[in-house]
């Protein structure tokens, strides 16, 4: 979007307060499991962020959520008559409405936060995509079947293969095409080590919870609770105890307390 259009949208967004009927769309979860690891992680990150801001949102599952999204990525929110997808733009959108978590940070800290968010997106998210679309065992046993669940034959196969080729092309473009699964697990470990070192013994990455906490929680919690073909990824993340307790803490604060 051009700068003028962005400014216009921000102004439109700022005009109205956050409505009660905001909805978040993601692929099917539950009985007809369609959602994949990477989408589930991104969706959980956005949900966590909105809970941290105290903004109510209803989660709706649709089989065509990926195609409904204006950018093609999950999740997206429908607020008023605007549609915004992905965590970055959603953070901007809520900031325009006056809700922000990172206002208390100074410029250096904000730059650091952005750097770590980039790290998570470039490492963790790419690793998740690699494992679910480029690792033969996972693709054939889990991913292809799940991705094509809502469609009838032969469309379920066509769409799954089409998506696989698209992700493989993207992996080649970012230079991950030649990696093996073990190298990817190593990259995940390194990323987790960097996050663990930054977190240390603090409750959150900065003094107050920010979008970085939401993003890290979304990815790590999903990895810890998703069953793949093997437990390698799970073990790597679990080996960092402060990250484990971080996830548990956020889950207890924002998810369990709401249910009671």
């Amino acid at each position, binding site marked *: 979007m051009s700068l003028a259009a962005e400014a216009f949208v921000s102004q439109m967004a700022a005009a109205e307060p956050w409505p009660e009927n905001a909805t978040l769309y993601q692929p099917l979860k539950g009985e007809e499991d369609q959602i994949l690891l990477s989408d589930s992680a991104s969706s959980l990150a956005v949900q966590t962020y909105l809970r941290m801001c105290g903004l109510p949102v209803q989660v709706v599952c649709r089989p065509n959520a*990926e*195609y409904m999204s204006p950018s093609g990525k999950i999740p997206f929110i429908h607020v008023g008559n605007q*549609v915004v997808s992905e965590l970055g733009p959603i953070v901007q959108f809520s900031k325009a409405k006056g809700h922000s978590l990172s206002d208390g940070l100074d410029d250096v800290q904000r730059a650091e936060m952005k750097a770590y968010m980039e790290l998570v997106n470039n490492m963790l998210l790419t690793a998740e995509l690699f494992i679910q679309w480029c690792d033969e065992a996972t693709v054939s046993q889990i991913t292809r079947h799940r991705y094509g669940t809502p469609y*009838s034959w032969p*469309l379920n196969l066509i769409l799954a293969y089409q998506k696989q080729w698209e992700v493989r092309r993207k992996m080649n473009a970012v230079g991950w095409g030649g990696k093996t699964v073990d190298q990817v697990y190593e990259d995940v470990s390194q990323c987790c080590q960097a996050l663990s070192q930054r977190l240390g013994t603090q409750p959150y990455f900065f003094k107050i919870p920010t979008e970085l906490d939401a993003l890290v929680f979304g990815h790590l919690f999903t990895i810890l609770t998703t069953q793949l073909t093997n437990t390698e990824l799970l073990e790597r993340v679990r080996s960092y105890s402060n990250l484990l307790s971080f996830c548990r803490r956020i889950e207890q604060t924002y998810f369990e307390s709401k249910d009671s």
Partner: protein
Amino acid sequence: MIRPPSDPQEPHVALVEEWNASEQHHKVVVQHVNIQGLGRTKEDLLGYEISDVFNAKNLIDVMKKAHIARQRLLRLGIFKEVEVLIDTSEGADALPNGLDVTFEVNEIKRLTGSYNTMVGNNEGSMVLGLKLPNMIGRAEKLTFQFSYGTKETSYGLSFFKPQPGYFERNLTLNMYKVTGQFPWSSLKETDRGVSAEFNFPVGPTSHMLKWEGVWRELGCLARSASFAVREESGHSLKSALSHTMSIDSRNSAIFPSSGALLRINQELAGFTGGDASFFKEDFELQLNRRLFWDSVLSASLWGGMLFPIEGKPSCIADRFYLGGPTSVRGFGMYSIGPQSEGDYLGGEAYWAGGLHLYTPLPFRPGRGGFGDLFRTHFFLNAGNLCNLNYGEGPRAHLQKLAECIRWSYGAGIVLRLGNIARLELNYCIPMGVQSGDRICDGVQFGAGIRFL
């Protein structure tokens, strides 16, 4: 040697009057019927078309039957020219009243190609067409069209095979990818599909049975598309069986002055696989009658209903649309009925009717030539489009279709293009406009093949 006139308009009678009256009823026997000039066409295919010539009893009959056989050979679409030669028999077994009929044919080339460039709607494209008529020798035809554009590409491959001896019974197999953009719904659609179509006549009616398997991809045309249209984005698979029956007794497709057309179409989707599941029915009726002074009164009625099966909601790509220069004039293109934020979503039931009075241009300029391509017409159009709640009974449906009728009246000029299409320039006054409809009152231009 007698050569029947190759121009069918010329009457035989003038030629025959030159003769001795008694010779007309002189009995003859057709001994041989030959076809010369065949290349790849198989002879057994043509046997059916020309076999009737053997049954001719006298000379007039021979000429008539030879003429009919020539028409039948031409309609196969495999010959450029057909000439008929009738001569007395020669040879050892020649009878004194024997005749030999010879058809001299000129086959169409094996491969024809065409190349066009098209520009329109902010898009340029290159269109390549290839046609292989009479591919294996029994009037099969293979056509391939490929369009490569700046925004979209589309292609189609089609194979046509008639039944030898019974050309009206034929089978067509298609494979295609087409894309369409529908700005009135802010929707774009890409269809990739295969279809098999079987045509056959039954008495005066012609029928078509078709199976179609289509992979449909819907998307928003602009970021500002309404959420209702955004919800329809995505992929679906439609596997449908359809049947069409039509009877056409009109004397012309574009400006008929007499006759009627009735076309009824049913489509059942979902029982042969796929995601889409519905039963769709639509019909088209047109009646024409000549009135005083070369003017023609034409009445037409269209209608249709879509019943979703198994409780699944209907898809925007299957619903009916109404309005526009080819439908209820005076309204924007497909801009009547249920809509959301300016995007028209179509409806599950509709009806539309039109009453036209066609007259030649006032003072008849260019009579007998160019002027005959034009007509003036005065029209009255009406219609309605809505969604039905199929839990209620038929009475509630009829009531719903009868309330809030949109209608319009006006006058204009119509131009015939070839024998398929027409252009219209009308002055329309829309009435019965409901909130949400988009109107086009005043001058409206339309071009198309099928008009209400």
